[in-house]
């Protein structure tokens, strides 16, 4: 953000004043349990460059208009996975969504991701999500002595699970899943993606165990292949495909 600002300022104040600012309305779902029990929409009209991101707009609102607006963000560059939110009815990362791409002529709705308890404004309780993640044992499990050097793996073996290593745990997929909305006991796409990452890793030896966990009532068989998760993933992971691969591994016991 600062670099783009520096650039326009470098051109001199006159040119910077002519920057293509537009007036956009942000309709944000506000919830503060200390003030009201019900969530409500609140409109903010701001002057902003449409080439900026939704996160910049939220910053502008928080820093210049209403300091009580609450949301999570850490890196602001699409890697930490903190700022997944429902923008114009679709789960996206606020830091990867340009305002010009989501039609700023109409009010842009911003709300918390669905299916998790809203704590305040755009902040949800991520604990159910992370519990599901922990339940699939997202760590390398091996037997025998530690090798004295790194565990080598062929390029093909690495390629097998490359797609699912890209997950940043933003919960955009899990909170777009209608099965998860209705029953939070379902593991959810993100947990299955991270199980997939280890099940298909040639160095890992607990694939059977993870498959057993996902074979249960709340596991992969609850997936209805609606592809919401694939559409929602800001990293472009083919989530539904990964879930189907876990299903196939469960049936054929080959992975």
């Amino acid at each position, binding site marked *: 953000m600062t670099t783009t600002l520096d650039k326009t300022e470098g051109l001199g104040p006159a040119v910077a004043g002519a920057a293509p600012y537009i007036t956009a309305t942000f309709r944000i779902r506000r919830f503060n*349990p*200390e003030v009201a*029990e019900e969530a409500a929409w609140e409109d903010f009209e701001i002057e902003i460059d449409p080439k900026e991101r939704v996160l910049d707009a939220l910053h502008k609102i928080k820093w210049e208009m209403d300091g009580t607006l609450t949301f999570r963000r850490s890196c602001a560059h699409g890697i930490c996975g903190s700022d997944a939110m429902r923008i114009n009815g679709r789960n996206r990362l606020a830091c990867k969504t340009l305002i010009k791409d989501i039609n700023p002529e109409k009010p842009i709705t911003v709300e918390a991701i669905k299916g998790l*308890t809203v*704590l*305040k404004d755009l902040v949800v*309780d991520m*604990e*159910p*999500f*992370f*519990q*599901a993640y922990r*339940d699939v044992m997202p760590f390398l499990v091996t037997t025998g002595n530690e090798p004295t050097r790194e565990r080598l793996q062929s390029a093909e073996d690495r390629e097998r699970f490359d797609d699912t290593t890209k997950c940043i745990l933003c919960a955009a997929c899990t909170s777009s899943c*209608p*099965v998860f909305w*209705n*029953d*939070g*006991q379902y593991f959810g796409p993100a947990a299955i993606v991270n199980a997939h990452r280890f099940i298909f890793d040639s160095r890992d030896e607990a694939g059977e165990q993870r498959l*057993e*966990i996902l*074979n*249960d*009532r709340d*596991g992969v*068989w*609850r997936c*209805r292949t609606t592809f919401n998760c694939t559409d929602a993933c800001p990293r472009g992971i083919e989530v539904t495909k990964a879930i189907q691969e876990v*299903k196939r591994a*469960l*049936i054929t016991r080959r992975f």
Partner: protein
Amino acid sequence: MSDATLSTGSTGSTGPSVENPAPLIEPPRARTGKTPKSTRTNFEMYGWLFMRLSGILLVVLVLGHLLIQLVLDGGVTKISFAFVAGRWASPFWQAWDLIMLWLAMLHGANGLRTIINDYAERDNTRFWLKMLLYTATVFTILLGTLVIFTFDPNI
């Protein structure tokens, strides 16, 4: 201040109040005494596989059935007691109808079971809806099977 809010917030009672602003949050994927133990069976897997395989068979069976009943030979007007009796005289059509009955009922029942599992919010509702479903399924399958096997064209 934030520490105090946090500590009272986690012990929370029911609704929001000044001392306990946030509503009580259900523990995630909670393992309580009432949580059913992990089943360690392949039931869900076989259920899923059954849906796929029976679906393929049902496409043939049901479309064939509809074609014979509604399209060929004058359509629906030709269906009468005699028409049914004539068809069930052959073991082939008996088997066709029997397999179709069982597959369609089990396929539909399993589909409804997953829908109930997905959408029923309370355990009690879920249980009774499923009981209703199972009763209706068993009744229909048994009745249909009985009719196919004991059909007497001379009544």
